[in-house]
């Protein structure tokens, strides 16, 4: 027995010693630091509401049109497009500008002419005839003339220097100008006596000197121009291609799903489900009530469905009515008051079991 005991003691001592030395504190469990993810709760409303766009357009990441920074030319424009006029026409891609190279060659010669002819556009037409005209116009002109004389000579000199140039340049312009509009009246007048020709210049002269005097009014001319682009489209300014959307934005007027859930939750909190409701189907109650803009109950809630018949159904109806009035100030988005001014809530106990 002695041998056994000593053997056992020695063995245990060795084992314990080994254990104490090697099985010291286990290494601490390394826990990786997991970064917390920020979570935003986004109302579904932004996704469910249709934005204005083109029904046939491809889905685009960026909704178009963007509100422009420029003031709208047409105040209450309804149609999308780059036009200055609000038209029904669908926007079509603008015609490509004509190649500029072709235009490069001719301009140099005509360019000088506009400078001289810019203010008195009609002048080139008259130039062959107007020489007698200055006579009626002299009544007005004499006044500036002395001024010109008094004024420093260099100006006059420069004018004088320019005029020959202008005349020299205008000579070629006469060739294109008759080709445009003035010819048809000439053709008509050819049949008629010269009086008409004489009268016309007189009329034109009486009108033209005025324009010369008042200084040319670009606005009047601009007002007469047709600003409607051939590309069509409305005046609602946006350079973007319309993305998928409806004819109108529906945003804002309807309660979104999450807001409906919020309202549902608010009502449900105060709802004591009628006890002993064996047949949930018979206890369905619809309650209609009005709310004022602050969310408070207006008038008393009205039961529009259910609640008839035996005691349990009536109790359920009363429970529903109590729930609505007890939770009375409802917290709802004020800007959508139109949507929740009248509310109908369906109470269905069968869904609660």
């Amino acid at each position: 027995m002695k041998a056994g005991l000593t053997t056992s003691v020695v063995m245990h001592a060795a084992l314990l010693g080994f254990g104490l030395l090697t099985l010291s504190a286990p290494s601490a469990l390394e826990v990786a630091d997991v970064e917390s993810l920020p979570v935003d709760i986004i109302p579904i409303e932004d996704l469910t509401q249709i934005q204005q766009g083109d029904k046939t357009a491809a889905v685009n990441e960026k909704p178009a049109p963007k509100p422009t920074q420029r003031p709208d030319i047409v105040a209450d424009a309804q149609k999308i497009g780059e036009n200055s006029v609000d038209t029904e026409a669908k926007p079509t891609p603008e015609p490509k500008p004509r190649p500029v190279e072709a235009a490069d060659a001719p301009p140099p010669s005509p360019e000088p002419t506009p400078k001289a002819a810019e203010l008195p556009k009609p002048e080139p037409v008259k130039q062959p005839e107007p020489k007698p005209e200055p006579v009626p116009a002299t009544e007005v002109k004499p006044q500036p003339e002395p001024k010109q004389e008094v004024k420093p000579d260099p100006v006059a000199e420069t004018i004088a220097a320019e005029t020959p140039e202008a005349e020299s340049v205008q000579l070629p312009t006469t060739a294109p100008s008759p080709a445009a509009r003035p010819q048809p009246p000439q053709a008509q007048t050819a049949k008629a006596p010269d009086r008409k020709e004489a009268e016309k210049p007189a009329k034109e002269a009486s009108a033209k000197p005025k324009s010369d005097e008042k200084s040319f009014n670009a606005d009047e001319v601009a007002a007469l121009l047709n600003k409607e682009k051939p590309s069509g489209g409305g005046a609602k300014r946006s350079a973007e291609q319309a993305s998928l959307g409806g004819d109108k934005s529906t945003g804002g007027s309807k309660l979104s799903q999450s807001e409906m859930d919020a309202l549902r939750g608010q009502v449900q909190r105060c709802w004591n489900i009628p006890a002993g409701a064996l047949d949930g189907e018979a206890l369905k109650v619809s309650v209609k009530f009005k709310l004022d803009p602050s969310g408070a109950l207006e008038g008393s809630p009205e039961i529009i469905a259910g609640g008839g018949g035996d005691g349990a159904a009536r109790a359920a109806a009363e429970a529903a009515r109590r729930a609505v009035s007890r939770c009375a100030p409802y917290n709802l988005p004020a800007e959508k008051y139109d949507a929740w001014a009248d509310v109908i809530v369906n109470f269905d106990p069968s869904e609660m079991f």
Partner: protein
Amino acid sequence: MENIALAEPSAQLSIWALFWQAGWVVKLVMLGLLAASIWTWAIVVDKLIAYARMRSSLNRFEQVFWSGQSLEELYRTLSDRKTTGMGAIFVAAMREWKKSFEKGAKSPIALQSRIDKAMDLALTREMERLEGRLGFLATIGSAAPFIGLFGTVVGIMTSFQAIAGSKSTNLAVVAPGIAEALLATAIGLLAAIPAVIAYNKLSSDASKIAVRMEGFSDEFSAILSRQIDEKVAQKG
């Protein structure tokens, strides 16, 4: 109850530290289980040695017994020594035989029964010596886990009371107490498992030895019975 585990939540978790942090009940349980384990292994080692010796002595005796040597001579050599196993049975039977014949036995049947009784007694004593303390192994094998569990339960109770006191459920506060309490169960299992295995092995070894010795005693009884008959016939 001490608030040991919670005094320093970041306490060491080595086995020694766990033992030292434990409450006195748990400490007592652990020490008891350690002592039981030591005693178990002492018994196991002792029994293994004893059984090996017994088997070799049985082999040697059988060799000598069946070598054709005269039983009287064998008895003379063995009676001086301290004998075990079959030797003890043989010596007991021969002593009874000698005593009866020296005094002149009258009835051979009574002699036969006396010799059988003497051999049974010797066999029983031998088996008692062989199987002694095996019961302790069985006890440890079944009870040690429960003792360890008791220590664990007490330890966990203590640490939960301490947690309630500290009003913190941080795992760093809870864990050391529980780890320390679980150590008691671990020690209990550590003591019980070898005890159960050793008990099963040793008891089966002991029964094998017992079968061998019973067989020898039956054979020797037959031999003596024949001798008695021969002696009676010679006398008559």
